[in-house]
């Protein structure tokens, strides 16, 4: 195999594309978790976003509506989670699992009539630059607008959390809802907003899969990416910039698998696929044994039920 520099550029472009759904979902979940809510329903919200985006694309023939609709449907289904965990004080873990199970089932039911329909071509930006600039072309150009948004999102999220008043409020609610509440912050409102935002981002992540990455509807097509996104948030110790790095590593492993088979290296692909999960466990162990490290960014009240006596 020749070492074509352009080929490496194309590979890097492919890695970026495969990390987009992870970045979107993980950044959404990161905001939710920073407000103290652990939503294990990422996979369910993503798959609902994937089918709604695709179904809207087929029905309306309008990609813009499809993308907006996928975000809305992710948001709508996350309302169930918000209502249960915040207003009816249910356990976050169990409710999130129910959301994932329900989402996978619901998406298959809605998607029954959309199996086998070919997708529509999603407009890509700067296609001519991709062809004409060697190496850098395939990395920076010829992507969909959602990819550019996804790569901007970790920086926006970081800025939001660190440099804005609203970001401070979100972190305060996540670290100590009781103190935040005593300061006059409406904890429920903040947490509802963060859950709904997370839902919308997961919906968008799903739409990226069904509209751009593999433009069609297949049952269960998210294939565990929601769980990887969840792992990614912990892997990144709740820091948005590290989410970006982690997503690229995880996305890189996906692409590596495809190409290793082509090259004929004798490492089992399953071992490579298992690496992200094993690495997440190792990172978890490393950050958890040092209590100072984990306290730095971990929302202290993560997964705890908040109830205010009226």
């Amino acid at each position, binding site marked *: 195999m020749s070492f074509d520099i352009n080929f490496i550029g194309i590979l890097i472009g492919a890695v970026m594309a495969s990390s987009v759904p992870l970045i979107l979902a993980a950044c959404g979940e990161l905001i939710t978790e920073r407000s103290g809510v652990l939503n294990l329903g990422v996979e369910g919200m993503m798959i609902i976003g994937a089918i709604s985006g695709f179904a809207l694309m087929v029905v309306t023939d309008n990609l813009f509506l499809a993308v907006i609709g996928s975000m809305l449907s992710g948001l709508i289904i996350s309302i169930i989670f918000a209502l249960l965990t915040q207003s009816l004080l*249910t356990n976050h873990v*169990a409710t999130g699992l129910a959301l994932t*199970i*329900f*989402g996978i089932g619901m998406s*298959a*039911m809605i998607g029954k009539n959309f199996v086998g329909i070919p997708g529509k071509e999603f407009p890509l930006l700067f296609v001519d630059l991709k062809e004409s600039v060697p190496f850098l072309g395939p990395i920076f150009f010829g992507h969909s607008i959602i990819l550019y948004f996804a790569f901007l999102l970790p920086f926006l999220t970081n800025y939001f959390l660190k440099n804005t008043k609203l970001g401070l409020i979100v972190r305060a609610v996540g670290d100590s809802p009781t103190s935040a509440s005593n300061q006059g912050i409406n904890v429920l409102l903040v947490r509802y907003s963060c859950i709904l935002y997370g839902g919308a981002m997961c919906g968008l992540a799903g739409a990226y899969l069904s509209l751009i990455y593999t433009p069609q509807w297949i049952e269960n097509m998210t294939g565990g990416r929601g769980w990887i996104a969840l792992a990614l948030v912990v892997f990144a110790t709740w820091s948005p910039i590290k989410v970006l790095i982690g997503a690229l590593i995880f996305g890189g492993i996906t692409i590596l698998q495809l190409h290793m088979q082509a090259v004929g290296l004798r490492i089992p692909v399953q071992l490579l696929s298992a690496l992200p999960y094993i690495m997440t466990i190792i990172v*978890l162990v490393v950050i*958890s044994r040092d209590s100072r490290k984990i306290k730095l960014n971990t929302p202290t009240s993560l997964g705890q039920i908040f109830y205010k*006596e009226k």
Partner: protein
Amino acid sequence: MEALLIKVEKRNDVSPSIYFLTPILAIFLTLIGGAIIFYVLGFNPIEALKFFFVTPISDLYGLSELLVKATPLCLIAIGLSFCFKSNNWNIGAEGQLIFGGIVGGGVALLFYGHDGFYVLPIIILSGAIGGMIFALIPAILKTYFNTNEILVSLMLVYVAKLLLDYLVVGPWSNPEGFNFPETRQFSESARMPILFDGLRIHAGIFITLATVFLSWLILYKTYLGFQIKVSGLSLKTAKYAGYKGKTMIIIVFIISGACAGLAGVGEITGPIGQLHRNISPDYGFTAIIVAFLGRLNPVGIIFASLVVALTYLGAETAQIFLQVPKYTGQVFQGMILFFLLGSDYLLFFKIKFLGLRKNEL
């Protein structure tokens, strides 16, 4: 203007009748929710529900299938109830099931062609040990490194799935199997005895029933069970009483891992008879719903496992008669848990209707 005045008050104690009635309420609400969804999708809701919940169990074969599916669900949920009662969130039972299946299946392949009464017990035991070992990973990491058991046990599910995939594609694949991703069919001596000719119900059900009885003994008649319950209710009290928290975490994970491993080995030596990629239709995750629906109570879990097993069967029947996807069962499973968790609100809060009051505008 009239306004309905509602006051929400915190209850001081949980009423036991409501505690066991809310699961029935949740099932009822799920049926209504299901009818609405079927109606929206253009089906006759009554007919669809009948295909889902009545047709599958209207003959002997259907009833046997119900028990075949309830057997692993009940077993895993019983194990999980130990974890959940003591506030340990093991949600990786699916991984422990698969790993138990891998170890048990490996031993079964080792004994390929052997006859003897000892073969099956050894396989079953090794499956339980496999599940146990896999559950020990999150338990040890939690006790010694303070690692979150939810995430670790969940990540391990995927590791187990990929390991199984590697084994059935690679080293363990059937030498005469034309490269299909599956192992040899196990020998007759490695299979669970079938209870009735022509039906698939197998001896694994006795393992499940024995486990239910044992766990009832442990939970309600031993000091260990008392300790588990106390630490679930209040960790502070448990510490004050001097219970060894770390040992307890290890014990509950071992119990639930062994149960999940047993379920896995029961599946591969029972209805499946070999290892392949999909040895479990997410029983490990669905069992979490069973555990909650059964209120973490051994008898409750038996009934809950039958209800949830019916959603699996119903989805298969509905797939044939209504051409809906097999994932439809998950819609019902998700709804049951939603409604159950939601109705728990009634346990802890009293809703008082203070009557109508005229508001002056």
